[in-house]
Protein backbone atom coordinates (compact mmCIF):
# COMPACT_ATOMS: atom_id res chain seq x y z
CA UNK A 1 0.00 0.00 0.00
CA UNK A 2 1.32 3.40 -0.98
CA UNK A 3 1.39 5.46 2.27
CA UNK A 4 0.72 8.64 0.29
CA UNK A 5 -2.66 7.20 -0.67
CA UNK A 6 -4.00 7.49 2.85
CA UNK A 7 -2.99 11.13 3.05
CA UNK A 8 -4.73 11.77 -0.28
CA UNK A 9 -7.82 9.89 0.92
CA UNK A 10 -7.91 11.99 4.08
CA UNK A 11 -7.64 15.16 1.98
CA UNK A 12 -10.65 14.09 -0.13
CA UNK A 13 -12.60 13.23 3.02
CA UNK A 14 -11.77 16.61 4.57
CA UNK A 15 -13.16 18.33 1.49
CA UNK A 16 -16.24 16.19 0.77
CA UNK A 17 -17.30 13.97 3.71
CA UNK A 18 -18.89 16.76 5.83
CA UNK A 19 -17.84 14.91 8.99
CA UNK A 20 -18.92 16.19 12.38
CA UNK A 21 -15.37 15.51 13.67
CA UNK A 22 -11.96 16.58 12.40
CA UNK A 23 -10.70 13.82 10.10
CA UNK A 24 -7.26 14.15 11.74
CA UNK A 25 -8.73 12.80 15.01
CA UNK A 26 -10.06 9.62 13.34
CA UNK A 27 -8.11 6.39 12.99
CA UNK A 28 -7.90 4.56 9.67
CA UNK A 29 -10.49 2.09 10.94
CA UNK A 30 -12.98 4.65 12.27
CA UNK A 31 -16.50 4.39 10.82
CA UNK A 32 -17.02 7.46 8.65
CA UNK A 33 -20.81 7.10 8.65
CA UNK A 34 -20.74 7.15 12.47
CA UNK A 35 -18.60 10.28 12.15
CA UNK A 36 -21.40 12.05 10.31
CA UNK A 37 -20.92 11.18 6.63
CA UNK A 38 -24.35 11.07 4.96
CA UNK A 39 -25.24 9.02 1.87
CA UNK A 40 -25.12 12.18 -0.25
CA UNK A 41 -21.73 13.10 1.19
CA UNK A 42 -20.43 9.59 0.44
CA UNK A 43 -21.35 10.12 -3.22
CA UNK A 44 -19.29 13.31 -3.24
CA UNK A 45 -16.42 11.41 -1.60
CA UNK A 46 -16.67 8.72 -4.29
CA UNK A 47 -16.55 11.31 -7.09
CA UNK A 48 -13.74 13.19 -5.29
CA UNK A 49 -11.65 10.02 -5.02
CA UNK A 50 -12.19 9.25 -8.71
CA UNK A 51 -10.83 12.72 -9.54
CA UNK A 52 -7.90 12.58 -7.12
CA UNK A 53 -6.72 9.10 -8.11
CA UNK A 54 -7.83 9.19 -11.78
CA UNK A 55 -9.81 6.00 -11.33
CA UNK A 56 -13.40 4.91 -11.91
CA UNK A 57 -15.12 2.75 -9.33
CA UNK A 58 -16.83 -0.22 -11.06
CA UNK A 59 -20.49 -0.84 -10.22
CA UNK A 60 -19.76 -3.63 -7.74
CA UNK A 61 -17.72 -1.17 -5.63
CA UNK A 62 -20.49 1.45 -5.48
CA UNK A 63 -21.68 0.38 -2.06
CA UNK A 64 -21.65 1.58 1.50
CA UNK A 65 -18.94 -0.74 2.85
CA UNK A 66 -16.30 0.39 0.32
CA UNK A 67 -16.45 3.96 1.71
CA UNK A 68 -16.95 3.22 5.40
CA UNK A 69 -13.38 3.97 6.60
CA UNK A 70 -10.03 5.31 5.40
CA UNK A 71 -8.76 1.72 5.46
CA UNK A 72 -11.66 0.37 3.38
CA UNK A 73 -11.19 3.12 0.80
CA UNK A 74 -7.42 2.50 0.69
CA UNK A 75 -8.01 -1.22 0.08
CA UNK A 76 -10.41 -0.47 -2.79
CA UNK A 77 -8.02 2.04 -4.35
CA UNK A 78 -5.10 -0.39 -4.04
CA UNK A 79 -7.15 -2.94 -5.95
CA UNK A 80 -8.00 -0.43 -8.69
CA UNK A 81 -4.46 0.95 -9.10
CA UNK A 82 -2.45 -2.30 -8.92
CA UNK A 83 -0.53 -3.55 -11.91
Amino acid at each position, binding site marked *: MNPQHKEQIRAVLKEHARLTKDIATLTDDADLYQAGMTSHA*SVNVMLGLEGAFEIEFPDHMLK*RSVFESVQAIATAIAELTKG
Partner: protein
Amino acid sequence: MSATDYDAGKFYDGLVKHRLILPTGVAGAFGRGPVFEDVLERFNRLVDQLAVDDKAEAVTYPPIINREILEQVEYLDSFPQLAGVVHSFMGKELKARELSARVKAGEPWGEFFEQTAVALTPAACYPVYPTLRGTLPSGGRTVSLTSWVFRHEPSPEPTRMQAFRCRELIRVGSTDDVVKWRDTWLQRGVDLLTALGLPAKSDVASDPFFGRGGRMMAVNQIDQKLKFEVLVPVISVDNPTAVCSFNFHQDKFAAKYDIKTADGEMANTACLGFGLERCVMALFQTHGFDPGLWPREVRSRLWP
Protein backbone atom coordinates in the same frame (compact mmCIF):
# COMPACT_ATOMS: atom_id res chain seq x y z
CA MET B 1 -59.78 -12.97 -16.42
CA SER B 2 -57.00 -10.50 -17.19
CA ALA B 3 -57.83 -7.59 -19.49
CA THR B 4 -54.86 -8.17 -21.79
CA ASP B 5 -51.96 -10.58 -21.71
CA TYR B 6 -49.89 -8.08 -19.70
CA ASP B 7 -48.89 -6.10 -22.78
CA ALA B 8 -48.30 -2.38 -22.11
CA GLY B 9 -49.52 -1.19 -25.53
CA LYS B 10 -52.66 -3.35 -25.54
CA PHE B 11 -53.45 -2.37 -21.95
CA TYR B 12 -53.14 1.35 -22.78
CA ASP B 13 -55.38 0.94 -25.84
CA GLY B 14 -57.93 -0.98 -23.78
CA LEU B 15 -58.01 1.70 -21.07
CA VAL B 16 -58.60 4.34 -23.78
CA LYS B 17 -61.23 2.28 -25.62
CA HIS B 18 -63.22 1.80 -22.41
CA ARG B 19 -62.92 5.54 -21.61
CA LEU B 20 -61.10 4.70 -18.38
CA ILE B 21 -58.32 7.10 -19.38
CA LEU B 22 -58.57 10.10 -21.72
CA PRO B 23 -55.48 10.87 -23.84
CA THR B 24 -54.32 14.51 -23.95
CA GLY B 25 -51.54 14.27 -26.54
CA VAL B 26 -48.81 14.29 -23.86
CA ALA B 27 -47.34 10.99 -22.65
CA GLY B 28 -48.16 10.21 -19.04
CA ALA B 29 -50.62 13.12 -18.72
CA PHE B 30 -53.96 11.48 -19.62
CA GLY B 31 -57.28 12.31 -17.97
CA ARG B 32 -59.35 9.82 -15.99
CA GLY B 33 -62.91 8.84 -16.90
CA PRO B 34 -65.79 8.52 -14.39
CA VAL B 35 -65.56 4.74 -13.96
CA PHE B 36 -61.80 4.94 -13.30
CA GLU B 37 -62.40 7.71 -10.73
CA ASP B 38 -65.17 5.78 -9.02
CA VAL B 39 -62.88 2.78 -8.50
CA LEU B 40 -60.03 5.03 -7.35
CA GLU B 41 -62.15 6.78 -4.72
CA ARG B 42 -63.56 3.49 -3.48
CA PHE B 43 -60.08 1.99 -3.22
CA ASN B 44 -58.90 5.03 -1.26
CA ARG B 45 -61.85 4.55 1.12
CA LEU B 46 -60.64 0.99 1.81
CA VAL B 47 -57.31 2.53 2.85
CA ASP B 48 -59.28 4.91 5.14
CA GLN B 49 -60.85 1.87 6.80
CA LEU B 50 -57.46 0.19 7.28
CA ALA B 51 -56.16 3.39 8.88
CA VAL B 52 -59.00 3.85 11.39
CA ASP B 53 -56.87 2.76 14.36
CA ASP B 54 -54.01 5.05 13.31
CA LYS B 55 -56.17 8.06 14.23
CA ALA B 56 -54.19 10.06 11.71
CA GLU B 57 -54.58 13.81 11.29
CA ALA B 58 -56.02 14.27 7.77
CA VAL B 59 -54.50 17.22 5.91
CA THR B 60 -54.58 18.46 2.32
CA TYR B 61 -52.03 20.42 0.30
CA PRO B 62 -52.18 21.79 -3.23
CA PRO B 63 -50.03 19.98 -5.82
CA ILE B 64 -47.35 22.65 -5.44
CA ILE B 65 -44.69 22.89 -2.74
CA ASN B 66 -42.43 25.57 -1.32
CA ARG B 67 -39.28 25.27 -3.46
CA GLU B 68 -37.14 25.65 -0.33
CA ILE B 69 -38.37 22.25 0.90
CA LEU B 70 -36.96 20.55 -2.23
CA GLU B 71 -33.67 22.33 -1.57
CA GLN B 72 -33.64 21.37 2.12
CA VAL B 73 -34.37 17.65 1.62
CA GLU B 74 -31.72 17.40 -1.13
CA TYR B 75 -34.31 16.38 -3.75
CA LEU B 76 -32.25 18.09 -6.44
CA ASP B 77 -29.21 16.00 -5.43
CA SER B 78 -31.16 12.75 -5.49
CA PHE B 79 -33.67 13.18 -8.34
CA PRO B 80 -32.89 16.26 -10.48
CA GLN B 81 -34.17 14.34 -13.51
CA LEU B 82 -37.69 14.00 -12.02
CA ALA B 83 -38.19 17.53 -10.66
CA GLY B 84 -40.69 19.99 -12.07
CA VAL B 85 -40.14 23.58 -10.98
CA VAL B 86 -42.71 26.29 -11.68
CA HIS B 87 -41.60 29.27 -13.77
CA SER B 88 -43.75 32.30 -14.58
CA PHE B 89 -43.60 35.41 -16.73
CA MET B 90 -42.59 38.41 -14.61
CA GLY B 91 -41.71 40.95 -17.31
CA LYS B 92 -43.30 44.20 -18.46
CA GLU B 93 -45.52 44.72 -21.49
CA LEU B 94 -42.72 45.08 -24.04
CA LYS B 95 -41.30 41.72 -22.96
CA ALA B 96 -44.79 40.19 -23.15
CA ARG B 97 -45.00 41.29 -26.78
CA GLU B 98 -41.64 39.70 -27.52
CA LEU B 99 -42.89 36.53 -25.85
CA SER B 100 -46.03 36.57 -27.96
CA ALA B 101 -44.01 37.04 -31.15
CA ARG B 102 -41.79 34.09 -30.26
CA VAL B 103 -44.79 31.86 -29.55
CA LYS B 104 -46.50 32.85 -32.81
CA ALA B 105 -43.29 32.20 -34.76
CA GLY B 106 -43.08 28.73 -33.22
CA GLU B 107 -39.75 29.55 -31.59
CA PRO B 108 -38.55 28.63 -28.08
CA TRP B 109 -39.87 31.00 -25.37
CA GLY B 110 -38.75 29.41 -22.09
CA GLU B 111 -36.14 32.11 -21.44
CA PHE B 112 -38.94 34.66 -20.83
CA PHE B 113 -39.99 32.75 -17.74
CA GLU B 114 -38.38 33.05 -14.32
CA GLN B 115 -38.23 30.66 -11.40
CA THR B 116 -41.02 31.12 -8.83
CA ALA B 117 -41.14 30.20 -5.13
CA VAL B 118 -42.91 26.91 -5.87
CA ALA B 119 -42.27 23.55 -7.49
CA LEU B 120 -44.65 20.73 -8.40
CA THR B 121 -44.95 18.39 -5.42
CA PRO B 122 -42.79 15.33 -6.15
CA ALA B 123 -43.87 13.30 -3.08
CA ALA B 124 -47.12 13.80 -1.19
CA CYS B 125 -45.45 13.71 2.24
CA TYR B 126 -42.83 16.45 1.70
CA PRO B 127 -45.01 19.41 2.77
CA VAL B 128 -45.76 17.64 6.06
CA TYR B 129 -42.27 17.29 7.61
CA PRO B 130 -41.57 21.02 8.20
CA THR B 131 -44.91 21.26 10.05
CA LEU B 132 -43.78 18.64 12.59
CA ARG B 133 -40.91 20.78 13.93
CA GLY B 134 -40.59 20.73 17.72
CA THR B 135 -41.38 18.15 20.38
CA LEU B 136 -43.91 15.43 19.59
CA PRO B 137 -46.64 14.29 21.97
CA SER B 138 -45.84 10.95 23.64
CA GLY B 139 -46.67 8.20 21.15
CA GLY B 140 -45.65 10.43 18.24
CA ARG B 141 -47.91 11.60 15.45
CA THR B 142 -49.51 10.12 12.33
CA VAL B 143 -50.61 12.23 9.36
CA SER B 144 -52.69 11.18 6.36
CA LEU B 145 -53.13 12.85 2.98
CA THR B 146 -53.91 12.26 -0.67
CA SER B 147 -52.07 14.46 -3.12
CA TRP B 148 -51.22 14.83 -6.79
CA VAL B 149 -47.51 14.37 -7.39
CA PHE B 150 -45.34 15.15 -10.41
CA ARG B 151 -42.43 13.14 -11.84
CA HIS B 152 -40.84 14.14 -15.12
CA GLU B 153 -40.68 10.76 -16.81
CA PRO B 154 -42.94 10.90 -19.87
CA SER B 155 -43.65 7.42 -21.19
CA PRO B 156 -46.26 5.77 -23.41
CA GLU B 157 -46.45 3.00 -20.81
CA PRO B 158 -49.71 3.60 -18.86
CA THR B 159 -48.40 2.91 -15.34
CA ARG B 160 -45.60 5.48 -15.73
CA MET B 161 -47.37 8.81 -15.35
CA GLN B 162 -46.08 12.36 -15.11
CA ALA B 163 -48.80 13.19 -12.58
CA PHE B 164 -50.71 10.84 -10.33
CA ARG B 165 -52.31 10.64 -6.91
CA CYS B 166 -50.58 9.18 -3.93
CA ARG B 167 -52.41 8.23 -0.74
CA GLU B 168 -49.87 8.61 2.02
CA LEU B 169 -49.60 8.04 5.73
CA ILE B 170 -46.69 9.50 7.64
CA ARG B 171 -45.56 8.28 11.05
CA VAL B 172 -43.16 10.17 13.27
CA GLY B 173 -41.94 8.91 16.64
CA SER B 174 -39.26 6.70 18.17
CA THR B 175 -37.23 4.33 15.97
CA ASP B 176 -39.00 1.23 17.32
CA ASP B 177 -42.48 2.73 16.88
CA VAL B 178 -41.81 3.87 13.35
CA VAL B 179 -40.24 0.62 12.11
CA LYS B 180 -42.98 -1.45 13.71
CA TRP B 181 -45.63 0.79 12.12
CA ARG B 182 -44.03 0.47 8.70
CA ASP B 183 -43.85 -3.32 8.95
CA THR B 184 -47.50 -3.52 10.10
CA TRP B 185 -48.58 -1.43 7.12
CA LEU B 186 -46.50 -3.47 4.69
CA GLN B 187 -48.54 -6.51 5.70
CA ARG B 188 -51.78 -4.51 5.62
CA GLY B 189 -50.96 -3.39 2.07
CA VAL B 190 -50.35 -6.94 0.88
CA ASP B 191 -53.53 -8.13 2.64
CA LEU B 192 -55.70 -5.37 1.14
CA LEU B 193 -54.52 -6.04 -2.41
CA THR B 194 -54.78 -9.82 -1.96
CA ALA B 195 -58.35 -9.44 -0.71
CA LEU B 196 -59.09 -7.60 -3.97
CA GLY B 197 -57.92 -10.62 -5.94
CA LEU B 198 -54.52 -9.13 -6.86
CA PRO B 199 -51.41 -11.37 -6.80
CA ALA B 200 -49.46 -8.95 -4.55
CA LYS B 201 -45.94 -9.58 -3.28
CA SER B 202 -43.63 -7.39 -1.20
CA ASP B 203 -39.94 -6.89 -1.85
CA VAL B 204 -37.09 -4.68 -0.73
CA ALA B 205 -36.64 -1.77 -3.17
CA SER B 206 -34.70 1.37 -4.00
CA ASP B 207 -35.54 4.81 -5.37
CA PRO B 208 -34.49 5.90 -8.91
CA PHE B 209 -31.58 8.08 -7.72
CA PHE B 210 -29.77 10.06 -10.42
CA GLY B 211 -26.46 9.02 -11.99
CA ARG B 212 -23.60 6.75 -10.83
CA GLY B 213 -23.67 8.32 -7.39
CA GLY B 214 -27.34 7.41 -7.39
CA ARG B 215 -26.49 3.77 -7.95
CA MET B 216 -24.48 3.96 -4.74
CA MET B 217 -27.41 5.58 -2.91
CA ALA B 218 -29.71 2.83 -4.20
CA VAL B 219 -27.38 0.04 -3.05
CA ASN B 220 -27.14 1.65 0.40
CA GLN B 221 -30.92 1.87 0.56
CA ILE B 222 -31.29 -1.83 -0.27
CA ASP B 223 -28.48 -2.90 2.13
CA GLN B 224 -30.20 -1.06 4.95
CA LYS B 225 -33.69 -2.29 3.93
CA LEU B 226 -35.05 1.25 4.10
CA LYS B 227 -37.62 0.83 1.32
CA PHE B 228 -40.13 -1.92 0.58
CA GLU B 229 -42.64 -2.08 -2.24
CA VAL B 230 -45.72 -4.13 -2.90
CA LEU B 231 -45.72 -5.32 -6.49
CA VAL B 232 -48.55 -6.52 -8.73
CA PRO B 233 -48.28 -7.58 -12.39
CA VAL B 234 -49.86 -4.86 -14.56
CA ILE B 235 -47.90 -4.59 -17.80
CA SER B 236 -45.55 -7.53 -17.23
CA VAL B 237 -45.66 -10.75 -15.25
CA ASP B 238 -41.86 -10.95 -14.97
CA ASN B 239 -41.46 -7.32 -13.87
CA PRO B 240 -44.48 -6.54 -11.69
CA THR B 241 -45.39 -2.91 -11.02
CA ALA B 242 -44.82 -1.25 -7.64
CA VAL B 243 -48.26 -0.13 -6.45
CA CYS B 244 -47.30 0.95 -2.94
CA SER B 245 -44.11 1.76 -1.11
CA PHE B 246 -43.08 1.76 2.55
CA ASN B 247 -40.16 3.94 3.48
CA PHE B 248 -38.11 4.30 6.65
CA HIS B 249 -36.20 7.61 6.57
CA GLN B 250 -34.26 7.10 9.84
CA ASP B 251 -33.70 10.64 11.17
CA LYS B 252 -33.22 12.29 7.76
CA PHE B 253 -36.29 14.54 7.97
CA ALA B 254 -36.36 14.80 11.77
CA ALA B 255 -32.78 16.09 11.88
CA LYS B 256 -33.49 18.54 9.05
CA TYR B 257 -36.59 19.97 10.75
CA ASP B 258 -35.57 19.41 14.38
CA ILE B 259 -38.35 16.99 15.33
CA LYS B 260 -37.90 15.49 18.79
CA THR B 261 -39.75 12.71 20.61
CA ALA B 262 -41.52 13.44 23.90
CA ASP B 263 -38.43 12.26 25.82
CA GLY B 264 -36.14 14.60 23.93
CA GLU B 265 -34.54 12.15 21.48
CA MET B 266 -34.21 12.89 17.76
CA ALA B 267 -37.36 11.43 16.16
CA ASN B 268 -37.48 9.01 13.23
CA THR B 269 -39.98 9.11 10.37
CA ALA B 270 -41.53 6.66 7.94
CA CYS B 271 -44.13 7.05 5.22
CA LEU B 272 -46.16 4.76 3.07
CA GLY B 273 -47.81 5.57 -0.20
CA PHE B 274 -50.41 3.83 -2.34
CA GLY B 275 -50.03 4.86 -5.98
CA LEU B 276 -53.78 5.12 -6.47
CA GLU B 277 -53.83 5.03 -10.28
CA ARG B 278 -51.52 2.02 -10.30
CA CYS B 279 -53.71 0.18 -7.77
CA VAL B 280 -56.74 0.88 -9.99
CA MET B 281 -54.88 -0.20 -13.14
CA ALA B 282 -53.86 -3.42 -11.39
CA LEU B 283 -57.56 -4.09 -10.74
CA PHE B 284 -58.50 -3.44 -14.39
CA GLN B 285 -55.65 -5.59 -15.69
CA THR B 286 -56.38 -8.46 -13.32
CA HIS B 287 -60.19 -8.49 -13.51
CA GLY B 288 -60.99 -6.91 -16.88
CA PHE B 289 -62.03 -3.48 -18.20
CA ASP B 290 -65.67 -3.72 -17.03
CA PRO B 291 -66.04 -3.54 -13.23
CA GLY B 292 -69.58 -4.91 -13.62
CA LEU B 293 -67.97 -8.24 -14.53
CA TRP B 294 -65.41 -8.35 -11.71
CA PRO B 295 -65.57 -11.29 -9.27
CA ARG B 296 -68.32 -10.89 -6.68
CA GLU B 297 -65.91 -10.95 -3.69
CA VAL B 298 -63.95 -8.05 -5.23
CA ARG B 299 -67.09 -6.07 -6.04
CA SER B 300 -68.50 -6.59 -2.57
CA ARG B 301 -65.45 -4.93 -1.03
CA LEU B 302 -65.42 -1.92 -3.36
CA TRP B 303 -69.23 -1.55 -3.60
CA PRO B 304 -70.27 -2.67 -0.09
